[in-house]
Each structure stands twice: as C-alpha cells, then as structure tokens.
C-alpha cells in the first residue's frame, strides 16, 4: 500500500475524515516555509498539499497569488521547493505529500525529469492545475513511470462522461472541485450530491477529497457528511500564513486553526 492508501484505510477504520492543508512552498522564504509545514503536520495535518510558486497562477485567487509572489520575490526556484519537500519527507516518513503545480513548470523542467524529481524528493502525488483530463495522457504516463500519482480534478457538476473518465484515471485521490471560480474563501464550498458520491463509489474511484472554499470546521463536517473522504483547505490556511509573515498574528493562530479543522474531521 502506498502512503495515500494507508492513510485512507486508517482513517476509514477510525471513522475519520482526512484533513489536508495547502500552502505555497517557499512562502515567504524556504526556512520559514519549512517551519510552517512542519507545524502543519505536528498540529494534525493528515496529508499535505504543497504548491509551487508560479508567475501566472490562473486558477488562484488573490490570497494564493500573493503567497506565490512572496516566494518568487524571495528568489525561490523549483530546486528550493524540492529541497523543502525532501526535508519534510525526512522528518515525517509516512505523511502523503501532494504537489500542486502549473503545466509550464513541469514542461520547463522536462516532463519525465519533473516527476522523477518529485519522486526522489519524497512526494506522492502531483496535480497540475491547468492540465485537464483532455490533455492529461502524456502527463499521466510520465507520472506513472516515475511512481507518482497524478491527481485529476472533478467539478461537482461535470457531465457523466467526465465523471467516468476522471474516476477511472485519477490516482492517489480525486480532487472534487466544490464550486466555480478560483481559489479563495470569499465564496463558500458547494457539496456533492448523494448520486455523485454513489457513482464514484460504484466506479471504484480514488477517495474523493473536496477542495475550493473550505475554510471552516462546519464546512469540513458537512463535506464528510456528504460522503467526501477528506477536505483540502487552501486560501484559509494561506491567509493565516500571510497574517503571520506580515506580523498581524502569531503562528499559533495558524496552528490552532489546523487543530480545529482536524478536530472537525474526526
């Protein structure tokens, strides 16, 4: 069993949901970023979703855009991101690590090289925000060859054909997109229908995890009740990172938020 399979089976046997916080690697600098990610794990993160900073993040709202800009301004390169991942992996052997990137970063490094670097650093999965199912074949092949799970996104109101294909092809977990728009907390997450969740079960899909706009413990409970196996919280987490790095709030505020979100998943 790989790390995701172990995590989801352990969570299932305990009757828990999985809580996955997202942060941008290198935000605001590599050393602080490592300290933050370390704290996420120590305060209850079941898995990690780590974004590579990119100059043109079209799927992201202002909070995550700013985080990427902070990392880029600090001179963070892909090499630095892989180095942070390696350090996290060294410290936490069992936690699943997912990467969130944009296609150009993968192509600039070379598709095969990128996935091999991810594997070597200790990552488990990669989600490419601007590679939809239609364009995913070469990426899926390269990921598989490197032993990386390529995660695909399924919008809640996707057509049946897309549901079947994404269910069949997403590896590691399946990213259920809770709503339209870009990442951010200004719009609340929607919830999947009972039919969709049953459909995914029947199709033997990887565990569905809900993301986009998940920012409160109540939303975590609602998502799990609707049948999601976990949730990803991005902008709400990254906003607290920003509050810390701009001196508006102590790091403990971020960590207590992580504990509350994990508690809600129990």
């Amino acid at each position, binding site marked *: 069993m790989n790390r995701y399979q172990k995590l989801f089976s352990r969570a299932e046997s305990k009757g828990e949901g999985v809580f996955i916080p997202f942060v941008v690697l290198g935000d605001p600098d590599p050393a602080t970023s490592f300290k933050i990610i370390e704290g996420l794990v120590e305060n209850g993160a079941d898995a990690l979703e780590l974004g590579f900073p*990119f*100059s*043109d*993040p*079209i*799927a*992201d*709202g202002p909070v995550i*855009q700013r985080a990427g*800009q902070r990392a*880029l301004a600090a001179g963070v*390169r*892909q090499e630095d991101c892989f180095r942070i991942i390696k350090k996290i992996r060294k410290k936490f052997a069992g936690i699943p690590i997912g990467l969130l990137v*944009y*296609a*150009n*970063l*993968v*192509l*600039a*490094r070379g598709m095969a090289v990128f996935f091999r670097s991810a594997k070597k650093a200790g990552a488990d999965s990669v989600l490419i*925000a*601007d*590679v*939809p*199912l*239609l*364009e995913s074949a070469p990426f899926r092949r390269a990921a598989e060859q490197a032993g990386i799970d390529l995660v*695909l*996104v*399924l*919008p809640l109101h*996707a*057509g049946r054909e*897309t549901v079947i294909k*994404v269910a069949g092809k997403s590896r590691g977990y399946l990213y259920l*997109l809770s709503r*339209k*728009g*870009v990442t951010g907390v200004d*719009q609340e997450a929607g919830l999947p229908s009972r039919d969709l969740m049953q459909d995914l079960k029947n199709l033997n899909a990887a565990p569905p995890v809900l993301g986009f706009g998940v920012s409160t413990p109540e939303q975590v409970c609602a998502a799990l009740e609707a049948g999601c196996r976990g949730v990803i919280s991005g902008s709400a987490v990254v906003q607290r990172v920003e509050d810390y790095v701009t001196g508006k709030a102590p790091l403990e505020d971020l960590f207590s938020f992580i504990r509350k979100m994990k508690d809600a998943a129990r």
Partner: protein
Amino acid sequence: MLKKNPSPYYGNFGGMFVPELLVPALLQLEQAFLKSQKDSAFKAQLNTLLTTYAGRPTPLTLCHNLTAGVTSRIYLKREDLLHGGAHKTNQALGQALLAKHMGKRRIIAETGAGQHGVATAIACAVLGLKAVVYMGVKDIKRQQPNVFRMKLLGAEVIPVTAGAATLKEAINQALRDWAGSYETTHYLLGTAAGPHPYPLMVKTFQTVIGVEAKKQFLKAEGRPPDAVIACVGGGSNAIGIFAPFLNNKDVRLIGVEAAGKGLDSGLHCASIQKGKEGVLHGARSLILQDRDGQISDSHSISAGLDYPAVGPEHAHLHQTGRAEYVGITDRQALEAFQLLSQKEGIIPALESAHALAHALRMVKKSRKPLRLLVNLSGRGDKDLTLAEKALRKN
C-alpha cells in the same frame, strides 16, 4: 457533438490547457462557433455589420512617396481605417455576435494597447451587451485615450495591478473571472492565442483581411505579392492576412516581432525568436520564460505587442518554416512611424509600424524590385502622447 471537430493542435502547439472547470465552456464555445460557420443567417448578420457598420472592405493603398526612387512597391492593407481604428473590430464583432447567439449577455475581455478593449466595447454597444474589460495599470497609464474611449462606449474597465500589470496579467484576471462566470459570460479573447477554439475562431474572423487583400493585390499588380508582412504580438492580424496565402508557397509570410531594445537585450517580446516551448494562457506555444519556467516580463514601446507568448499557429508556422519571423526594435518602429506620417500622411499604430519598418528594410536590402503587402493593422492616434515623449528623448 458534431462529427468532424477541428484539431485543437497545430503540430505540437495549441491545445486546451485550462482548469477542468473551463473545459465544458470551451467545448460549448467550439460547438457554437462551428455551428455559426454553417449558419448562413449568422454569416449574413456578421457581413452586414462588417460592411454597413465597420467599414469593410478596407482599401489597399500603394505607397507613392515612401519608395520614391526605387522600383519596389509597398502596399498597405488599411485596417487603420476600420471602425475602431484597428483590425480588432473584425473579430470582436464576430465573437460578440456569437455570444449573443449563445445567449450570453455579459462579455469580458482583456486589453493591452486598449484596441481590443475598444473593439469589444464597440461590438457590445452595438449589439446591446454588457462589456467588462480587464487592463493592466501600466497599460492604463500609457494608453489613456483608449481607456476613456472604452468608458465612453459604455464598458467597465477594471484595472489589474498584479505582476508587471500589462496584457499578461489582464488575461490571467479575465480567465479567473470566466472560471466563475462562464455560464452567463462570454470571454472575448482578443488575439489568436489562448486555448482552443480561440486561435481557430479568431483566425477565422480575421481572415477577411487576407481574403480582401489577396484580391485587391491581384487587381493592382496582376500577381500575388512577393511577401506578406505583419506585426506579431499574439498574432491575430498576422494570421488573418497570412491565412489565404498559406497554400501559395511562392509568397513569403513574414511576422515581425517587437525586438524592444534589441533581441539580445532581454527587453523585447520576441517569443518566437527567443522563447521556449511551454504553456501559458491555455495553449502550448513559444513563451519567454526563465529556466525555471517562470514567465518573463516582456518589453515593447507598443503595448499591443507587449506579450511574452504567441498564438500557437505562429509557433507552428515557425517550426515548419512556412513563415519567417524577424525583429524590429522600438527605435526602428519609431522611425517608420514618423516616415509613414511624413511621406504618406498616414499615422500608423506603433504595432503596425514594426511591420512597415521591416518592409522598408527589405526594400533597402533587395537588389530586385519587390512587391510587398504590409498589414497596416491599426492607426496611431492612441500612440501620440507616447510617441511624442519618445521622440523628444531621441
């Protein structure tokens, strides 16, 4: 779904590199566009708009004084005379009409020089649609007259402050808007770039330039041109005038990129000559970027060429060698800008001045007489303040 769907790819380039969420919106747009191309009522409506409203056909002008003393001839396709002041109106009307047929009442667009924003505002005003235009704050500063024009035409202009605050960031922001609004909103992308079906659709709506020019040139010269020359930012005016000549291998197709302060200065927008393969704004193409895959900031005196990528078909035409791509610097473009004004009484857009500058260079270098077709894609009124400042400095 229709059976014979066009490929989203031009060789290695193109595709639909967007978040999964936007795929259904693009497929819906593709279907609507393909249907419109078989719909004679749609075509008639668009044709009426182009002829009775926008001023098509535009003339072909032989330069009489610019080439005095030499036997070469330069013909200008006068898209500067199109309503709105640039070729952009052709396809803004096409897409806005399509959006109306699709039942979408809100139109979003990005703009660099402001020409596409103005064209969008015009198309939306005449067709009764709501226009929202994203524009980088740097461009808002350097293209003030167009900002006021858009507002006067009833469009809402939203400033974009991220990054270098030019066209690239404006497109990012428009894409983000569309991810949340696609059910009621059409994204009226301004150039032959972006995800499929935009490159195909924009080319189709701009091909009217080449179709007219080909006929006009034949009538004037009794033969096709030696070369067709157009400036390339995203590449819509160039692909529009190239399209009818693509199969005529005797006609050289030359795209002129903005070399800014020089092709080796790092301050330019020569994505084809200096870019690497990658993905930006939904398409695989040639892109100015660093070794890590971060997109570079581009530079040009002309805001309309200031874009670090290029439409995928141009990347393909470059790779196959069917078209050639060259660079013209800010300074060379300014010279051509003045020359055309003084010799022919036509003030060109700084973008189009790049194409003209290369034509003049060809004429100068050539030992045999050339017959050249230059796409004068826009007029220079919007550039007056900027040009005045730049010329005072020189």
